[in-house]
């Protein structure tokens, strides 16, 4: 472009050419997308700005729909890259069409056209999966002159119904603003839609009736400012205008379903699974014999769960009915593998064989409090577990892990609403939460310090609840490998592990116990007559969150945890304490901390406990939260000072 303008000046005298260029210049500039036209309010905290964020969904009956996207986004800096990347996913029952795109420079001049052949068409297979029937068209703009603007339009038509909920985010992430975000839904006259609008005061939309009873619904949101990304922030759906929608009816591979209630949606899942729970007679007989001498149902479930864990493995194969239909139990029995649906269905079938009823259960998985919107009855799930109601209590089984203890869900699926699938439909239930006394990280240590400052002794750590699975696999390593793992995990100052043991206990309250004998070279630093001994180098450390001087988002503390440490130091003879560690305690809405020391002859007993609380707090509270932690961290960094007696 620069060259073109230069050329224009050079040849300005050549009238004919000059006129031609005068035409070319304004034609190639799309002043609409000039970056300087973005209002200041939308530049604040923003790395990229949607000039247009448009989605159009047309439902032409319960077994067919089309999604059309039109995006114009300005990337302001390197960290804003991402929304400019074009990704169009499709699969065996859909057709994708790319309608073209452009890249504009800061002034809105076209610098590049994006054509179909510029897109790379790849198989969309995740690393952990063996085969997914999914493909993706990708285009990544490679521009580093900021700001620049990318526009594109694409469309995917599906020869199946929309069996899941779809969300339209006015902006898809933190650090992104939007000038205009709009959603249009068109429905054929035989369909209705359910929807939920988030974070908008005026929830209205425009509605018009088209020919042949078609309905057209339009939501339009303007000037959505960018949200800053900060640690512990609640999800974006708490802040930005968003619409979640799903049709009331859908059809997929001949399976008809309804989203009108959880009960109805559950019936659809039931219909997909129906008849897939048949096991070979031999297996049934085998299982009945296996549990024949057990009189307690829980024991039987546990035995069969152990059988599942040792005879199957997880392979992600998503095929058939959008990956919603499990492989039948017979197939799993033969091959010994399956995905979460197939293995859960298999487990359910095996329990049925010994007369125990269990329910296939849908869940939204993930660490932290991943939740679904309970008032919106359409598929929001991505994982399947098994619920086994027994006489006294209910057992929950995760069927894809061969390491998890019986009836232990871990933080992947704990404490959240789930959908139980029964013949008569779906029912919401809730998985159990770990109580704070289970989420432990405790230390016990005995350390002897000699007059050179070197230390030696025994360190034990115990982890349970949500921490259990972080450490459990280590217990299966050989002693030598455990040692290597411990070295990579624990950063005690200049230490050598003399012996080590990691044991997992999987009884009612599972925990992992790590014990090691260590020698700690120069554990206490010497300076003339003095020795400086760090009090907290042995135990799990507390670290402060980032300061976030200008915190804007509220914050969520998700887990109640407990940390308890007892360390017994044996001090060398002939030293006195010049500085003791003051007893310290602090309590706030965020947690409770206490540390104290007891000195008896030449032993020093150090006891520390730290409980964290849960809650959602406004941004103004963040400074208090930071300060609470900073006080603790500062106290913990103190050294005990010993001085040699004269």
């Amino acid at each position, binding site marked *: 472009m620069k*060259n073109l303008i230069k050329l224009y000046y050079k040849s300005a005298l050549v009238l004919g050419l000059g006129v031609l260029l005068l035409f070319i210049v304004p034609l190639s500039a799309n002043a609409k997308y000039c970056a300087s036209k973005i209002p200041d309010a939308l530049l604040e905290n923003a*790395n990229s700005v949607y000039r247009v964020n448009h989605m159009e969904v047309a439902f032409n009956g319960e077994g067919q729909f089309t999604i059309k996207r039109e995006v114009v986004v300005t990337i302001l800096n390197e960290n804003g890259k991402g929304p400019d990347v074009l990704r169009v996913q499709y699969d065996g029952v859909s057709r994708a069409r790319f309608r073209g795109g452009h890249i504009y420079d800061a002034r809105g001049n076209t*610098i*590049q056209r994006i054509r179909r052949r510029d897109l*790379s068409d*790849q*198989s969309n297979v995740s690393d952990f999966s*063996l*085969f997914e029937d999914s493909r993706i068209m990708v285009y*990544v703009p*490679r*521009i*580093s*002159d900021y700001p620049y603007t990318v526009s594109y339009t694409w469309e995917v038509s599906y020869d199946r119904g929309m069996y899941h909920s779809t969300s339209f985010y006015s902006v898809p992430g933190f*650090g992104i603003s939007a000038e205009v975000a709009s959603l249009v839904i068109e429905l054929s006259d035989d369909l209705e839609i359910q929807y939920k609008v988030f974070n908008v005061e005026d929830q209205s939309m425009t509605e018009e009736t088209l020919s042949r009873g078609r309905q057209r619904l339009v939501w339009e949101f303007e000037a959505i400012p960018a949200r800053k*990304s900060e640690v512990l922030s609640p999800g974006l759906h708490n802040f930005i205008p968003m619409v979640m929608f799903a049709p009331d009816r859908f059809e997929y591979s001949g399976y008809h379903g309804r989203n009108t209630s959880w009960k109805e949606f559950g019936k659809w899942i039931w219909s997909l699974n129906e008849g897939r729970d048949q096991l070979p007679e031999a297996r049934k007989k085998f299982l009945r014999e296996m549990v024949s001498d057990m009189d307690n149902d829980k024991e039987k479930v546990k035995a069969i769960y152990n059988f599942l*864990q*040792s*005879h199957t*493995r997880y*392979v992600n194969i998503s095929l058939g009915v959008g990956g919603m239909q499990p492989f039948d139990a017979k197939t799993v029995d*033969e*091959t*010994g*593998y399956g995905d979460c649906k197939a293995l859960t269905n298999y487990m359910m079938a095996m329990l049925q064989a010994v007369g125990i009823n269990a329910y296939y259960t849908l869940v939204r998985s993930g660490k932290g409090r991943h939740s679904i919107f309970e008032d919106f009855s359409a598929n929001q799930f991505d994982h399947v577990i098994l619920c086994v109601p027994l006489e006294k209590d209910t057992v929950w089984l995760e069927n894809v892990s*061969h390491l998890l203890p019986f009836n232990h869900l871990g933080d992947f699926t704990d404490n959240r609403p789930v959908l139980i699938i029964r013949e008569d439909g779906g029912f919401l239930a809730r998985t159990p939460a770990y109580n704070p006394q289970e989420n432990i990280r405790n230390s016990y240590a005995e350390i002897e310090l000699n007059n050179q400052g070197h230390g030696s002794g025994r360190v034990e750590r115990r982890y349970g609840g949500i921490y259990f699975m972080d450490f459990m*696999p280590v217990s*299966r*390593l*050989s002693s030598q*490998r455990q040692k*290597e793992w411990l*070295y*990579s995990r624990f*950063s*005690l*100052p*200049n230490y050598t592990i003399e012996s080590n043991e990691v044991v997992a206990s999987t009884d009612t309250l599972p925990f992992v116990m790590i014990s090691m004998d260590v020698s700690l*070279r*120069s554990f206490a*630093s010497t*300076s*003339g007559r*003095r020795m*400086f001994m760090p009090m907290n180098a042995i135990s799990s450390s507390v*670290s*402060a969150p*980032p*300061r*976030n001087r*200008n915190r804007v988002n509220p914050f969520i503390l998700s887990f109640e945890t407990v940390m308890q440490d007892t360390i017994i130091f044996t001090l060398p003879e002939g030293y006195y304490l010049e*500085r003791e560690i003051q007893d310290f305690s602090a309590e706030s809405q965020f947690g409770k901390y206490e540390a104290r020391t007891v000195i008896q002859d030449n032993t020093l007993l150090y006891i520390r406990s730290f409980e964290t609380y849960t809650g959602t707090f406004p941004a103004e509270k963040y400074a208090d939260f930071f300060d609470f932690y*900073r*006080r603790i*961290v*500062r106290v*913990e*960094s103190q*050294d005990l*000072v010993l001085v040699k007696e004269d």
Partner: protein
Amino acid sequence: MKIGRLQFCYLLLPLIIMTSCGSTQDVPMRYRHVDDYYLDMDYYPSDTTAKAVVLGDYGILEINYHRNKGFTSYFTRHKRVKIFDKDAFDVADFHIRLYSSGSSRERITRLRGNTFNKEGNRVERVRFSRGDAYEEEVSDHLTSVNFSLPAIREGSVFEIEYTIESPFLQTLPTWYFQSEYPTVFSEFRMLIPEYFNYRAMMQGFLVLDSVDQRRQNRNFTVEWEENHFLNQTSKHSARVDYEENQFFMRIEDAPAFTVEPFMNAPVNYLSKIEHELLSFRMPHGRVTDYSSSWGQLNDQLLRSSNFGGVFNRTRFIGEEKDRIMAQHPEPEERLIAAFKLIQSEMTWNRNNGLFATQSLRRSWDDKQGNAADINLMLVMLLRELDIDADPVILSTRANGIIPPMQIMLKNFNYVIARASIDGQEYLLDATEDITPYFLLPERCINDKGRLVVDGEGKWIDLKGDENNILKTESELFVKNCGSVEAKIVRKKQNQIRLRMLDNYNDYDSPEDYMDEFEASGAGLELISFEMAHDDDWGNPLETVYEFEIPETDPGPRDIIYVNPLLNDQMESNPFRREERLFPVDFVYPVQREYKVKVNIPEGYVVDELPVGANFRIPGRNGGASYKSTFVINGDQFIEVQIQFDLSKPLFTAEEYSRLREFFARVVEEQARVIVLKKLS
């Protein structure tokens, strides 16, 4: 298992074919026949920690004459694995990659497998067949055949056997004798017609347990048709006798390969063998050479339309060239101007690349390209400016070090530019904006690269610059309550500067970086942070931090303790393990210098001062050294000086224990505390 004193070797195979051993001709492992011993085995005696063990991995590569396709390679692999632990189940997942180019493609002609499980006294066999595999198109030239063996449990033994037919004969499949699991035996055989002359390259810590080479007479039939007058054709055939060269290589009891910290890419250390075609000669025919010398390799590159060929068209950059010529009379200034031009105009698409993806003109128009597009363009522009410039090809760190004797194009994956002005040499990589003209980015610092010129070319050292210097000057104001106020000025040069900029650019805002800095010291409260010279190559990058480490209790103290290094203190030894098999690789040498001025509060005197230390790992090619001094200057302040140098980037496994000890002492010394006492 033999490990040759743990010495790493590069060997040209023909040199070591001295020994001969028994009847290696028998197939080492029979399909479907699994010894009961392995089915019953519940751990591998040579490595009880192993979660799986490769019972046998046998590969045979044959080149045969195919009537329609000509010479074709057939690579058959038979692998058998015992699984002890669920964590190793993924060893039963396979992804076989097949290449294609135009109408030539690799094909799987056979694929079968078995899983064996012992149920009581009975061995249950579950078959795996071709139909159970899924084909996935990875890209235009690459297909992946994916499958997973059925009925895998703890205790299973499985085997697979497959044959890949390939028309691509220039390089043969790489054979790895080692993997993350221990291996009972790994054997590779090659049956190659006399017409083909391959160079073999062996790499790794393991030594072949047996090697053998033989010759065998064989023949094939060629058929052809001749067209005569009036469309008459006649068919002919002839039998061709030839000698087949047979190679046998075997390693027994190979240990599992484990990755360690501060290590260059594992591909540098795994035991493997590779083959590259040197030449081909048909009976009575001409010898066709295939990069059997650097001269030929260079020639091949320079003749390639995507390498040497790109230099032919230069007009598109003529205007820029004229401008630089006019503005900069001095050659070095021209070089810098050319470098800056390419660097700022072109965006690197983060792909490596040995060949240009399109004409330089098109890349110039697109303003983007891979490393070859960008750096070949730089070479071209430099030449246009009458500067002596040539490409240097190299292998990035992730791609592995180039074995010096191996002349194989496929080892290389990146191009940079080399220029020479009056005997002064420059190595240039214009891909990233933060790299000055006198530095290479870390990914390129990987032993040696090869100069591509007419003729042999030569090795070019790809060392990191020596002057990677961090200078820290700080002033500490100690309060009588024990609080410390500090001002720290850091100057970072060369690679240290690049690392800082790389890191800093990852943060969304300066505040995020400040939050991170604050977290580096317990109770540290950052007051201000500034950065200067971040886009000025001529000066070190300067960062200035002002902060406070307050004490909770504001009352004056009788005794105050201060560690003058504050948050710069190294609190634990990065080398925790007691032993090491592989070299420690710091990538480039680093010099760190700390000058700290500690202001003593009024009414206080120094009660105890650390004595300072001076220790080193000496070495002819450099080593490591640490020196600290603590001096009282008058009664107002203490001066602390620390010089901490790693003057060579690479420490061998033999040097590891000394390096670990060295760092242990650094941790010890940096924990030393100054004690101040109130005057009574």
